[in-house]
């Protein structure tokens, strides 16, 4: 029986390390009262940013009852880092068919990483009860071919929601 448990624990470790399933465990605090005034989550810095190493970072605000921005564009086959926080209550987000699944807790920045294998539209609902408008909190992530993605180093790309 102990061997059985050891095997199961082994599966957890291997799947975590080898399949790059990284839940957000970064423990970064942020003051929800002042995050809109300056720093990383000021409105002009939200959206998809190109990093020097070729990866991209998507910064989002989850708030009652929508994501800001509510549509982002990312390149296919590239390391994508989502950094999300909330100025009000607890939210969450999930991208079906990927490993992106995180809670968004006010006071903390949640960071999750993924690599999209296919071009297309992904719907991104809030998956934690955040109030009476919770059911309307859906955003979209559009994955485009790598060669069509271009964000100047200082600009932030968003897409027009359809």
């Amino acid at each position, binding site marked *: *029986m102990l061997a*059985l*448990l050891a095997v*199961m*624990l082994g*599966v*957890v470790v291997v*799947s*975590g390390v080898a*399949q790059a*399933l*990284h*839940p*957000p*465990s*970064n*423990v970064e*605090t*942020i*003051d*929800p*009262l002042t995050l809109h005034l300056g720093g990383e989550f000021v409105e002009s810095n939200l959206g998809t940013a190109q990093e020097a190493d070729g990866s991209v970072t998507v910064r989002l605000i989850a708030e*009652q009852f929508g994501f800001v921005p509510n549509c982002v564009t990312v390149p296919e086959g590239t390391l994508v880092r989502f950094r999300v926080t*909330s*100025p*009000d*209550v*607890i939210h*969450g987000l*999930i*991208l*079906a*068919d990927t*490993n992106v*699944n*995180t*809670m*968004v*807790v*006010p*006071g*903390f*920045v*949640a*960071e999750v990483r993924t690599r999209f294998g296919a071009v297309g*539209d*992904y*719907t991104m*609902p*809030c*998956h*934690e*009860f*955040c*109030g*009476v*408008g*919770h*059911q309307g909190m*859906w955003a979209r992530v559009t994955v485009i071919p790598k060669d069509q993605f271009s964000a100047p180093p200082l600009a932030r790309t968003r897409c027009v929601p359809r």
Partner: protein
Amino acid sequence: MFRANRLALAHYWVAFGLFLPAVVLGAWQMLMRSPLPAPLDDSNLYYASVTLHGTVMAYVLTTFFVMGFGYAVTASSLGRPIRGMRAAWIGFGICLVGTLMAAATIIAGHATVLYTFYPPLLASTWFYGGVFLLVGGSMIWVVLMIVNMSLWKREHPGAPVPLAMFAITATACLWAWTASGVAVELLGVILPAALGMTRQIDAGLARTLFSVTLHAIVYFWLMPAYIAFYALLPQVAGGRLYSDKMARLVFIMFLVFSLPVGMHHLFADPEHGVGFKFLQTVFTFFVVLPTLLTVFTICASLEIAGRARGGRGVFGWIGALPWREPMMLASGLSFLMLGLGGFGGLINMSYAMNSMIHNTSWVTAHFHLIFGGTVVIMYFAIAYEMWPRLTGRPLRSKTLARWQLWLWFWGMLITTIPWHIAGLLGQPRRVANFDYRIPQVARTAALVDVSVVGGVMLLVSAVLLIFILVRSHFAARSEARREPVPAPIPALHYALAVYPPQRVPAALNGFAVWNVVVLVLVVAAYGYPIGQFFFLKPHSAPAYPVTRP
């Protein structure tokens, strides 16, 4: 004994009386979130309904059922009146007042925060106060269980405490530890904000405190089912319990391993690092041990019973078991659901795999299968087993009871299997209605439709349960008139072990040392994760009162 019967029945009736409307709400919620048309199509009502459904099922049904079961077990297993009847009725009254306060506040629309609270969302103080009274009142029950066991031990020095009493006292200790998390959350974080003493709420701290309660409470719900497996089922099956000491060890393991594991509900949370998440993953794996031991012990006990009844061959003893008895049938169905739900649980508790299903319908499916299925079907079986003993009237009827149990089983499977699949397809939970025109949502539509059928079956089963209990309790006299000589109702007998223990070590006859072990484990598992919030930079958010829309 008559007074203890009334006490137990009062608790059972509150539990099942509120259970039925909560099932009605559940069935309506399933219709709401499906592509099918629903009456009263309103998302505000939906979330209030989820709050009431969750509060009644998770706090009211369970707490009242376990308390009633505890009183019935105390009187019947110790074979003497309960000490502290007055305190027991006072506790019942406090819990009932708390329940009504919380329910009225939810119905009035002032507490739409779901049963898990989700601060910084802030409900009316009356809701939290009600929950606090319900939990607080149940602590009188905890004390009474411990006192009754201790007094019996003092009067029978050296004798092993009857297994059922030992197990229900383990349940009482577990509940006291379990409730500590939500009690500290309410007193330390939520009530100060609800009363206007503070304006901000530390959401991370509140979630972490609630996680202390959130998993251990599942074992508090589960314990009556396990007590029935060990103390009632072998007797009903006509055999003996394979090992008394193994049973004691299992209940001790539940007490010890239930607490330091709650963080597996926070795997997708950003306020905790990988170290403590992994530590609690490991602890969570240990909780599998008592369940595996139970599967072994109960199967061995049933094999003894089956062979004593003339069953032959490798599997022949299974057919020889008395499947027409509700307790036997419910235990079999419960084990099947435990098997299915248990494998799902292994995925939830795995730090990495949890990412695939966290907060999706998979999780809803999992706890409905484990709690609504495995556990609650045993609540039904316990009620059927105890009703004749408590009311003095026969159960009417076992055939109806079997129908009710089968309906519940199939209803639960038809509800939860589609939910599991929808969860894997990324369907988020706790959403009032979906836009099924979105391609990624559209693929779950048929699954949700199928689950509605299961919901209707569960509703029919719940109505049938209440019908059977009411008919057996109140209408039995007129029925009995038709039978000139009603059959005598045998007293409730607990299963004997193959080798009934004459003496057991002190560690298997009490909980003093085990409570110390729990304390050490809780401090090790939660000391830093809770303590860190007092050293992190300012991160509290303003409270968001939910008001009637």
